[in-house]
C-alpha cells in the first residue's frame, strides 16, 4: 500500500539553524491499516506526513504508493490519491464558499471534472445524505458560508471533504487538537466511522495516548526523526500507555 524507504529530510541545511526532521524512516502500511502516530513535539510527525503528502521533497529515500513511485510527484498531483487534515480547521475548507460549493470541489478530486457544469440537484441530495451521517444539522445548511461554522463543524466538513471520494491514504495531523473536548470526541468518532466505511488506510497523529491506543489497529512512536516503536494491535494491548511516556523526552 504505502512504502517509505529510508526517508531523510533536514530543514535549513548547512546553516546554524539546521534541523534534521526525518533521520531514516522506513515504514510499510498494509491496505486497511489505521495507524496512530505519537511522539513528543518536534519528533518529526508532521514532517513525516508532509513528506508523504508532498508539501516538500525529501532529501533521500523513496515513497511508493500502491507500487507507484511518488517521491517527486508534486503535492497537488498526489492529492488525487491522498486526503489530508490539519490541526487548523481553516486549512481544509474555503471560508467564503458555501458548504455545497466546498463539497463540490472535493467531489471533483480524482474524478473526471466537468468544468462547465454547475452543482446539480442530485449532487445536492448526495451531499445532504453524507452530511446527515455526522448528525450536526449541516445537511440543512448547504448554502451557508463555511466561515460561519464553528471549528468542530468545519473540521467535520473537512473530514467529509477529504473522504467524499475515498482516497487511497488519509493523513490526519492532530486534527482534533484545536477543538473543544466534546467536538474533539465527535470528530474522532466520525473519523473512525469514515475510515471503517471506506475501508481506508490512514495515518493519524495525536497527543491523546488514550485515543492512540484505542483507535485503529497499529501505533508507531516517533522520536528525533525516527520510528522508535511500531506496535501491532496485540502488542498495543500488552503495553501500558504510561510506559510510553519514556519516549517523550
Amino acid at each position, binding site marked *: 500500500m504505502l512504502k517509505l524507504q529510508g526517508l531523510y529530510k533536514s530543514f535549513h541545511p548547512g546553516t546554524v539553524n539546521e534541523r534534521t526532521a526525518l533521520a531514516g524512516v522506513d515504514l510499510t502500511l498494509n491496505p486497511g491499516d489505521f495507524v496512530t502516530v505519537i511522539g513528543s513535539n518536534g519528533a518529526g510527525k508532521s514532517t513525516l506526513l508532509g513528506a508523504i503528502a508532498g508539501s516538500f521533497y525529501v532529501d533521500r529515500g523513496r515513497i511508493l504508493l500502491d507500487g507507484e513511485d511518488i517521491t517527486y510527484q508534486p503535492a*497537488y498531483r498526489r*492529492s488525487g490519491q491522498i486526503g*489530508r487534515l490539519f490541526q487548523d480547521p481553516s486549512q*481544509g475548507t474555503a471560508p467564503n464558499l458555501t458548504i455545497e460549493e*466546498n463539497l463540490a470541489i472535493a467531489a471533483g478530486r480524482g474524478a473526471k471534472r466537468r*468544468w*462547465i457544469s454547475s452543482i446539480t440537484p442530485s449532487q445536492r441530495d448526495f451531499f445532504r445524505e453524507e452530511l446527515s451521517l455526522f448528525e450536526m444539522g449541516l445537511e440543512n445548511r448547504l448554502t451557508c458560508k463555511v466561515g460561519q461554522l464553528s471549528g468542530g463543524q468545519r473540521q467535520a466538513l473537512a473530514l467529509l471533504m477529504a473522504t467524499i471520494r475515498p482516497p487511497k491514504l488519509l493523513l490526519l495531523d492532530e486534527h482534533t487538537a484545536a477543538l473543544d473536548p466534546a467536538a474533539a470526541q465527535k470528530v474522532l468518532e466520525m473519523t473512525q466511522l469514515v475510515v471503517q466505511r471506506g475501508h481506508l488506510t490512514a495515518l493519524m497523529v495525536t497527543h491523546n495516548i488514550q485515543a492512540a491506543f484505542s483507535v485503529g489497529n497499529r501505533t508507531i512512536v516517533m522520536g528525533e526523526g525516527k520510528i522508535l516503536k511500531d506496535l501491532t494491535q496485540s502488542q498495543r494491548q500488552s503495553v501500558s500507555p504510561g510506559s510510553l511516556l519514556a519516549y517523550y523526552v
Partner: protein
Amino acid sequence: MTGAALLGAIELGLIYSLVALGLVVSYRVLGLADLTTEGSFTLGAAVCALQTTQGHPVLGLVLGTLAGACSGLVTGLLQTRMKMQPILAGIVTMVGLYSVNLMAMGGRSNLTLLRLDTAFSWAEEAVPGLGSLLAGGVAALAAALALGLFFRTHGGLCLRAVGDNPTMVGAFALNWENGILIGLFLANGLIACSGALLVQYQQFCEITMGTGMVVLGLASLILGEVLTRASSLPGQLMAAVVGSVLYRILMAGALAMDVPAAQLKLFSAILVALAISMPTLRQRMTFSRQRKANQPKEKGLAESRLKYQGQGETPC
C-alpha cells in the same frame, strides 16, 4: 449638466465598466492587486487602434483583448513559476508593456482614428443618437453576464476557491497556480477590451491612457458595491457596471460645474478616496449609533436608534 454630457458619461461608464469587471476577477475573486491593469488597458487600446487604422475594427477589438489577456498571463507566470510577489510581478509587466505599447502604436505616442470605421460608428449609423449607448451597454452586459455564468460553473467555482484558500485547492488535485494564470488571463482580457473599445469610441489613442486605471477601476467597483450593498459575486458584477457609470456621471458633473480642467485630477482623487473609504466610514457611523443606543438615558430615543444596528452577515 446637459443631456449630451450625461449621455456621454453613461457611454464612457459602460465602456470603463469592463475594467471594473476585470478587477472583480483579479482583486475580488483572486485577492490580487494586479498592476498589469495599467499596461494591459493601453495594450488593448494600442493593438486595436493600429488594426482600426488599417481598416480592421473588429479584428482590432479581438486582437486587443487577446493581447491584454496574454499580458496577464505573463504576470501570472512571474507570480507562480518564478514566485515573484504579486505586486512586483504586475509592476514588472507594466513597465515592460510601456515599450511594447509604443511598438504596437508604430513608435508613436498617439494615434487618431478620426473618420474611420469603428464598432461605434457602425452602431451610430444603425441607431442614430443612441448607437454608442447601445454598443457600450451590450458590451458591458455581455461581459457581466458571461462572467456571472462562468462563476457558476465548476471551473469558476475552483477559481473562487483559489482566491479563498489555495492550500485547500491543492488538497483536491487542483493546481492553484493554474487558477492564478486563468484568472489573470480573464481579468486582463476584459481590461484590454475596455481599452480597445475606448479608442474606437473616442477615436483617439495615447500611450498614457492606462495611467491610474487600477485605482479608477477599484473606486468604481467599490462605489458600486457600497451603493448597491452587494456582497455576493453576481451582485459585485452588477455593482461594477453601476459604479463605473456613476463614477463617470460624477466626473461629468464636476466638469459641468466648471471645475477647471487642471483641478479635475484632484476632484477625481477625492472621489476615489471617498469611494474607497466609504465602507469604513459607514461601519464607524453604525458603531457610534450602536454605542449611543447602548447608553439608555432617554428611553424612546435609544430604542429608535437601535433600529439602525449594523448589518452583519445574515445567519443561515
